[in-house]
């Protein structure tokens, strides 16, 4: 390259646009970050899609047919395969939102320095975090349906209510990605993620009603489950598949929305502290 070969038209500054003032929160900034994620996704979607469909299949086979041979039905005449198949949706959402957000966010700010590049453009932390969470929520919304489809192959009957599952997944996925981003914003080193997965995520996921109904647990555990967003997601998906339960589901959905909003603000606060000194 030699600067001399370039014409003035190619490098002369653009005259400033009159009257265009950027607002605090801009859709086009969020859109720009989403474009980046989508282009990136085109280079790794195969492996992600593979793992998010193969994993629930293995769980279903192991739990559905392994444990399922010991248990004929769970409560209201639902077979154990159907019980696990619907319960696994919440887990698939968790694993396709919280985990990649935790690792992805850490890698992007500390190793790849992607966020430094984005914040040097007209994008603020709030827009950046919102866009990243929206993207992960969209992914989780789709990947979260995989266990349901797998369960259908093994005999789960389709129902109209299941059309609500992608929306439930999206809401839960948004909260979990914000949770993942928050964790990444507060840990000092990537090794500390081990503490979070074993001390927070594993217990949450065991007492969410995925593999066994929580009404068999002691009273205190059932009260705690109300604070577990995964539990609300499991309940909603099962009710979508086997029949809605009115106000109980309004409460379940409200809990997911509250979780999402809280985690969103915490993620923005944490990332601003991390990225802007």
């Amino acid at each position, binding site marked *: *390259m*030699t*600067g*001399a070969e*370039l014409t*003035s038209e*190619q*490098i*002369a*500054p*653009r005259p*400033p646009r*009159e009257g265009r*003032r*950027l607002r605090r929160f801009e859709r*086009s*900034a969020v*859109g*720009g*970050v989403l*474009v*980046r994620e989508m*282009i*990136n996704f085109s*280079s*790794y979607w195969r492996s992600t899609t593979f793992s998010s469909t193969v994993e629930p299949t293995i769980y279903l086979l192991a739990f559905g047919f392994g444990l399922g041979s010991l248990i004929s039905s769970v409560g209201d005449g639902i077979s154990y395969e159907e019980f696990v198949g619907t319960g696994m949706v919440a887990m698939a959402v968790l694993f396709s939102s919280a985990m990649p957000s935790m690792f992805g966010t850490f890698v992007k700010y500390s190793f*790849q*320095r*992607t966020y*430094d*590049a*984005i*914040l*040097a*453009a*007209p*994008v*603020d932390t709030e827009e950046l975090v919102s866009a990243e969470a929206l993207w992960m929520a969209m992914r989780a919304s789709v990947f979260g349906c995989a266990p349901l489809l797998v369960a259908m192959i093994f005999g789960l009957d389709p129902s109209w209510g299941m059309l609500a599952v992608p929306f439930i997944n999206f809401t839960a996925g948004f909260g979990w990605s914000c949770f993942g981003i928050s964790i990444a914003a507060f840990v000092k080193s990537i090794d500390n993620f081990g503490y979070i997965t074993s001390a927070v995520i594993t217990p949450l996921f065991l007492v969410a009603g995925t593999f066994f109904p929580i009404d068999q647990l002691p009273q205190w555990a059932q009260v705690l489950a109300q604070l577990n967003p995964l539990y609300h997601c499991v309940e909603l998906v099962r009710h979508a598949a086997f029949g809605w339960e009115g106000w109980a589901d309004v409460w379940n959905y409200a809990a997911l929305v509250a979780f999402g909003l809280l985690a969103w603000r915490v993620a923005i606060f944490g990332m601003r502290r991390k*990225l*802007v*000194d």
Partner: protein
Amino acid sequence: MPVPDSALSLRGVVKRYGAITAVAGLDLEVPAGTCVGLLGPNGAGKSTTMRLLTAQAIADEGAIEVLGYELPGESKQARAEMGVVPQLDNLDTTLTVEQNLIVFSHLYRVPRPERREAIERALEIANLRDRRHTRVDELSGGMRRRLLIARGLVHRPRLVLLDEPTVGLDPQVRQELWALIDRLRSEGISILMSTHYIEEAERLADTVTIMSHGKVVAEGPPAALVAEHAGGEVHEVYGPPARLAEIEAEAQAAGRRTRRTGTSVTIIGDFSGNGGPAADGVQRAANLEDVFVLLTGEEIA
């Protein structure tokens, strides 16, 4: 909106990190359409200054104005009209050259009808038209740096911040980039360029600001700085360390300022005529490096 005379200005800016004061009352001005070189040893506060200008660091004291916008409040507007070339390569390495430019044409809000053209223009600037479909991790170091610069120009900014633009590159690539930077300046783009390559500042900058410990220690056109701080001529003597120490002592006893380079000692001013042991040195024109070392000290922080 009237075009401001100054592309950016910092007044009394202070930035602390705990007990460390990275920027300690900095005054800096880049007149519109000029290239200002920011010189300083490692830890002088150059990178912090660059971060302050994009509001990725918030000043504890002082006022910052970029393209007529006050920071940090109006920083987003300022960032929309300037381009930033970071010191650390933060390209998306698994994406192609073209994909990297597409992403930034969105982030910089290039209007949809102009996007295609903007990307072609940036490919031209980076001289990577034949490589548009190559993944970044398959590019050479020089190509990556060209892409990094072109990425910051995709929206035709009025002001460009270059943080150590040629660090770690071989001389040929460095000269290519110099030609490009010089071309930008000739089109009236204001440039703030931090560097610790003195030759780079000497060749490209209209004025040079020398920073040390978070403050400006000298500023002006390179030639004027040399004349003011090192005079016209210096006397440079080579020799083994013991001899250099001896000459240093002799010159200082005569009330002269000296500076050490790795293998020689430089005495400011003419020192050939005194007949002492230093008489066999060579007389040469003073340069910006002499000024730099005199003002920022010889010890490595």
